[in-house]
Each structure stands twice: as structure tokens, then as C-alpha cells.
């Protein structure tokens, strides 16, 4: 009982800290550039957009010195490009898009979060639709999100590795296992077994458990002040959905494919019509997984940060405290969404695997 209370209390404290720190970030941002741009709303919008994007360095916050120079507090990360050969340099050379990096006689410039190949002056050329036409080298840099994925992965390996070890000495769960074991059992007994079936569920357990905890932990940490939002990147959710699709694809039984391409039990013309629909369905399923996770997390962050931003727009005692309360409630909601999205992703993945390995004993 006491433990639960403690967890609740610390979660609330963490949230408050989160909100207040985010607020401070906005505040510093606002103060530093208010004079320059003059438009607070645009400023907040840009800040939110910036927050949602991946970046090539791990900066906690930035400020402007009296001389107008931008200072970033954080660490640079390695930039890895494939541009007729592997090009590796530190992201500090890019100066957050403020200067052109010269590596091996080639010039690179960071523009709107992407690295472009430019001339020495760093000119960005546009076509008539305002699309950049500069050459884009193949970018596999270790970005902020990649660093965060690595950190979360290490955290998971340490936590679950320790949990696994704790079972060697004694049978009853202890410490963190006491909290995690029911979740693992829930995924096994209420997600994997009902959806996939007792016969096949075991080979999917590793994937389901990993994906659930990965999404959940990374969503939760994305809500912390220092956390980096990873699942609001379409590339990340695409990778996860692709894995689910591939596993479904390779575990599909003969029966499963038969039901897609030549549905038994319906007239032949219907079979012809159904085949493309069913085939499309196999792509739409993981596609919906990808969009759902991406959209939920992105929307949550945008709304949360907008409401925090409102505090500075209102500039009145009542309005600001109202939006603080709203932001607080929304942050709590986001905690739920973090778990919910992980649950939905795992649940639907299990459902798709279940469809692929299902054994039809009667024709319908």
C-alpha cells in the first residue's frame, strides 16, 4: 500500500517537474527571441515543431548571449553520411544549421533537420514549389532519437536481465519483478494466448513482450523533461509496423494465404474481387499500426505543449493557472495513452499473428 502511494507521489512530482521544466524551456525561448521575432504565438508553434523533430545533437536547451550568439547546452553526436563513401564527422561542425561543415572537400549544411550537400557558402536552392533541390546524402547519423533508443534498449536489457537473474535464486518475484511479472503474465495470458492460441503463442512471446515494453517505456520517458520523443517519428513506427508485417508474412500458413488469394466458400467472381481487397488488407493492418502510434503520440505532445504555451500567451493569473491545471490533467492522460498505445500495438500485432497461424478446420 505504501509502495503504491510512493509511486503515485513520485509520478505526480515527476509530472510537475516535467511541466514546469518544459514551461521554463518555453520561457527562455520566448524571452530570448521575443525581441527578435515579436510574435509569441509563432514562436511557440515553432518551438513545438522543433520539439517534435529529431535532431543531430543532444541539446538540453539553448540560450542567446548578449552578443546575439546562440549557445546550446548539450552534447554533439556523430553524423554518418554515405556520400560516395562513408563520411563521419561530429555534429558540432554543423552548428545547428548555422554554419557549413566541410569534410573531405565536401560541404554539408543542416536545413530543417536534414543534411544537404551545398557549396562553400551554404546556399540552399529551391524549385518553384519551394522544395529544396540540393543533393541529399544518405544520412544514417546517430541522432538524438537513435541515442535515446540505444539508452532505452540498454535500460531494458539491464532491468529485464536482472529480473531474469532474480529467478535463479528464489522462485517468488522480488523487487522490480513484483511489478513487472504481472504485466508479463498479462501479455502472455490475455494478449498472446487468446489471440494466437496455446499451440503457437510461444514463438511470438519475445517479440510481443519486447515491443510492449519498448513502446511503453519510450513513451513514458518521452514525457519526462529530459526525455526525447521517439515514437512520434514516422520512421520509428514504420520500422515497428514493418517488423509486425514481416513476422505475419513469414508465419502465414498455407491456409492463411489461401484465404487471402482464393477465399474458399464463395463464388468464383467474388474470389476475384476479394483477392485484391484481402491483399490490400494485409498492408493496411500494419499501416494502421504505424499511423495510430505516430498520430497518438504526436497529437498528445502537440496539445500538451500548446496548452503549456498558452500560459505565456494569456499572461494573466487566471488564464495561466487554468492552463496549468489543464496541462497537468493532460499530462496524466498522456501517461495513460503511453501505456494504452503500447497495449494496442501489442494486442493488434498478436491478433495479426493469430490470423496468420490460425487453423481453419471448417470451410465457411
Amino acid at each position, binding site marked *: 500500500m505504501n509502495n503504491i502511494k510512493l509511486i503515485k507521489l513520485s509520478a505526480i512530482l515527476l509530472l510537475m517537474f516535467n511541466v514546469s521544466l518544459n514551461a521554463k524551456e518555453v520561457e527562455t525561448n520566448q524571452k530570448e527571441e521575443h525581441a527578435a521575432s515579436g510574435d509569441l504565438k509563432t514562436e511557440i508553434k515553432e518551438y513545438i515543431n522543433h520539439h517534435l523533430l*529529431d535532431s543531430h545533437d543532444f541539446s538540453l536547451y539553448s540560450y542567446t548571449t548578449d552578443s546575439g550568439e546562440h549557445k546550446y547546452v548539450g552534447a554533439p553526436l556523430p553524423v554518418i553520411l554515405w556520400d560516395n563513401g562513408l563520411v563521419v564527422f561530429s555534429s558540432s561542425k554543423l552548428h545547428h544549421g548555422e554554419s557549413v561543415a566541410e569534410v573531405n572537400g565536401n560541404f554539408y549544411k543542416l536545413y530543417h533537420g536534414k543534411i544537404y550537400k551545398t557549396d562553400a557558402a551554404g546556399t540552399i536552392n529551391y524549385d518553384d514549389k519551394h522544395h529544396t533541390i540540393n543533393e541529399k546524402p544518405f544520412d544514417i547519423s546517430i541522432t538524438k532519437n*537513435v541515442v535515446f533508443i540505444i539508452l532505452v534498449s540498454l535500460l531494458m536489457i539491464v532491468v529485464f536481465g536482472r529480473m531474469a537473474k532474480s529467478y535463479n535464486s528464489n522462485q517468488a518475484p522480488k523487487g522490480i519483478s513484483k511489478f513487472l511479472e504481472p504485466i*508479463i503474465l498479462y501479455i502472455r495470458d490475455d494478449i498472446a494466448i487468446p489471440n494466437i492460441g496455446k499451440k503457437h503463442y510461444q514463438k511470438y512471446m*519475445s517479440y510481443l513482450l519486447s515491443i510492449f515494453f519498448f513502446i511503453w517505456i519510450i513513451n513514458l520517458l518521452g514525457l519526462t523533461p529530459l526525455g526525447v520523443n521517439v515514437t512520434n*517519428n*514516422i520512421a520509428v513506427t514504420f*520500422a515497428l509496423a514493418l517488423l509486425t508485417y514481416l513476422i505475419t508474412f513469414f508465419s502465414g500458413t498455407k491456409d492463411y494465404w489461401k484465404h487471402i488469394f482464393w477465399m474458399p466458400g464463395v463464388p468464383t467472381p467474388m474470389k476475384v474481387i476479394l483477392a485484391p481487397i484481402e491483399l490490400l488488407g494485409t498492408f493496411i493492418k500494419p499501416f494502421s499500426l504505424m499511423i495510430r502510434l505516430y498520430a497518438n503520440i504526436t497529437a498528445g505532445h502537440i496539445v500538451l505543449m500548446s496548452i503549456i504555451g498558452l500560459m505565456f500567451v494569456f499572461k494573466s493569473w487566471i488564464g495561466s493557472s487554468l492552463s496549468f491545471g489543464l496541462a497537468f490533467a493532460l499530462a496524466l492522460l498522456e501517461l495513460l495513452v503511453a501505456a494504452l498505445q503500447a497495449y494496442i500495438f501489442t494486442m493488434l500485432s498478436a491478433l495479426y499473428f493469430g490470423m496468420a497461424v490460425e487453423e481453419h478446420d471448417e470451410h465457411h
Partner: protein
Amino acid sequence: MEKLIEQFSFGLFFWQLLLFGILVYFLKKFAWKPILTAVQEREDSINNALLSAEKARIEMQNLQADNERILKEARSERDAMLKEAREIKDKMISDSKEEAQKQASKLIEQAKHTIENEKQAAIVELKNQVAELSINIAEKVLKDELSSKEKQLKVIDDMLKDMKLN
């Protein structure tokens, strides 16, 4: 949609796929497998323990029922034995009483018989003695009566007198 495609970062996709693959591999090896096996084992052992407890309980019940049955049997046996003993005792007592009665009556009968015999013998003897005595007396009387001639004649006269009368 266009913005999404524009935002799509192949690098991030690549790293996510690679890192997540590695993560799944390591977690499977070092976490999920041992955890799930341990949990499964524990569940099995709990189930087994419950089953064996149930079995023990049933056995215990059987044992108890057995005990009760044996106890009941022993009790009834004891009761039967007691009853039998009592019956034997009663029978013995009544038998011996009867025997004694018989013996006693037999003795009495014998005694009576003897007494009767003795009585008869005594009567016979008494009779004999009385006869002898009366003969002796009669002899003496006769001797005395018939001691002189006149007396003898008188007797004959008397007798003859009697005869006449008759």
C-alpha cells in the same frame, strides 16, 4: 501526408530496425526465456503442490474414514463380546442353579427313600418283636393258665361254652 514523407528519416528507420532487432535478440536470450521458463516452472510447481495437497487431503479423509470404520467395528465387536460373556455368565449361573436343585432334590428323594425303608424295616422289626413278645406272653399265660388240671379243664369248659354259644 506529404509532410510525413518529407519528414521520414531513413537513418532513424535503419537504426530503429537494427537496434530493435538486437534488443529483441538480447532480451529473448537474457530475459524473456529465463523469465518465462521460471514463471512456467513456478506455475507448474504450484499446480503440482496444489494437486498433491488435494490428494493428501483425500487420502487423509480416506484414512480418517478408515479409522472411524475400524473404531466402529472394534466397538461393536467389544459390545458383542461383552454381550456374549454376559450371556455365558447368566447361563452358567442358571445351569449351576438347576444342577444344584436337581442334586438337592435327588438327595432329598434318596433320603426320603432311605427313611421309608428304615421305617419299614423298623416296623417289621417292631412287628416281629411284638409278635415274639406276645407269643412269649401268650406262652407264659398259657403256661400259667394250663399249669393245673382244673385250670385246663376250666379252659376246656369255657371254650366249650363258647362253642355252644356259637
